[in-house]
């Protein structure tokens, strides 16, 4: 694969040396992932690989994401995400992308290739096609708080495809918290989701409230 890749990261990069496929450009903005992302978009590379501060990609994470392009069912995906696991190797729920179950035929074709059709994804280990990513307005953390990355990717994936690649793994280096009901409620103000999806978001916010109340009691 001859594509050029810019890495945007906001945390430690000790894992980078072990990557079997190295990014061509590395942009680091400690503590400011969205700033790093915006700078990476300006590099002119074909792809931007965004790696959050709380994850450590496996040595083959990027190579596996790129390899998945060959088996991705059409249309060509604009986003590919690693699966974030906890230290025990199990999926880390707060850092997993959300599935898109409204496009069932595409979701079934993707599952056959061990891919999950995504509706939104966090900036954990996420490879984005720069051209499409740059067309969207950048993530807006002031408006959408902790889930600004998901709001941004939901916009990006509204009319495009993206896949979680289950065999590309990134490990969470600390406990990643679940979003608060307030975080989720903020998303309702975005036009990224359809009316039906917003109802589902509201349902998830209600379940978050129940979980918080359950913990408190």
């Amino acid at each position, binding site marked *: 694969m001859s594509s050029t890749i810019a890495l945007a990261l906001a945390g430690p990069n000790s894992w980078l040396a072990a990557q079997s496929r190295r990014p061509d450009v590395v942009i680091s903005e400690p503590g400011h992932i969205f700033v790093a992302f915006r700078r990476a978009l300006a590099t002119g590379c074909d792809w931007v690989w965004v790696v959050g501060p709380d994850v450590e990609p496996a040595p083959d994470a990027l190579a596996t994401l790129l390899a998945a392009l060959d088996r991705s069912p059409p249309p060509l995906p604009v986003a590919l995400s690693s*699966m974030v696991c906890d230290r025990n190797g199990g*999926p880390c729920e707060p850092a997993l992308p959300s*599935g898109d*179950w409204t496009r069932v*035929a595409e979701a*079934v074709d993707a*599952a*056959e*290739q061990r891919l999950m059709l995504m509706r939104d994804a966090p900036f954990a280990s996420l490879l984005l096609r720069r051209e499409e990513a740059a067309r969207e307005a950048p993530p807006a953390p002031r408006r959408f708080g902790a889930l600004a990355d998901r709001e941004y990717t939901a916009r990006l994936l509204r009319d495009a495809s993206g896949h979680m690649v289950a065999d590309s793994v990134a490990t969470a280096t600390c406990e990643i918290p679940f979003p608060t009901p307030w975080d989720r409620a903020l998303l309702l103000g975005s036009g990224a989701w359809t009316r039906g999806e917003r109802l589902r978001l509201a349902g998830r916010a209600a379940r978050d409230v129940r979980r918080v109340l359950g913990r408190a009691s």
Partner: protein
Amino acid sequence: MATGGASNHRGGVSAVVVTRNRRDLLEECLDALDAQTRPLDRVVVVDNASTDGTAAWLRASRSSVDLVQLTENLGGAGGFTAGIDHARRSRPRWLWILDDDTIARPDTLERLLAGAERAPSEPLLLASKVVWTDGSLHPMNRPGPKWRRPRETARAVRAGLLPLRYTTFVSLLLSGTAIERAGLPQRHYFIWSDDIEYTARITKRGSGYLVPDSVVEHRTATPYTAIDASGERFYYHVRNTLLMVRGSSWDWGERLALLWWLREAIWLYMRRNKGSAAAARVVVRGLRAGLRDGTR
């Protein structure tokens, strides 16, 4: 994962096919079952009171088939209930449920069983990918993925599976444990949504998966759905959706979604029928029956 957990089942796979007045398709369906790379232990055919000599033909040319002959047409729901009830008596490990217009590929069953082996948690049911004759996903048999449990989804995707909330009786592999836990389908649904209610009942407290590389062809004349169906079928769609909303197989959020879909379906059905009085009567009759009839 190992799938031999159900100790009170003898093992093996029994197929259950429900048929009514479609002998040619049934023959193709049974030929496809005979050609499976993983041979079946038993084939049960439920004849839903056919009038085209299906029963006599089966007795004459398919003596190995275990025939259940119904004296009246009980609809798909009644037929599958009778077939599952009959087949479960020999305590098979798996029941493979098919319509008579479902043509399996030679490796369909083998791949379903392989899916069971690699499933991240013990599967109560597994479904094939159902395509129409042009190879596209059949709209009548679109599976309902279970999207609320991201961890389970991620594990399933890693195994090349899709976790299911509901599916249809068109190539469904049902474990003996599932039948023990959930009982039988609701025969009074007659047609439409009986399979969706039944599989939702099973997966409410257990796992089910779609195995995308296990494929069957559903040879309907057109790739239709409830909205394109005749008045009587749409009546059952409306009635049975309301019965599901009133039943216990879905949680409150899902019930709201069912109502939403019903509203959309009625709107599309009325539009397709140009708002005719006959179509309105079908809808009203379905709504009344759905609110009045017993759920179980």
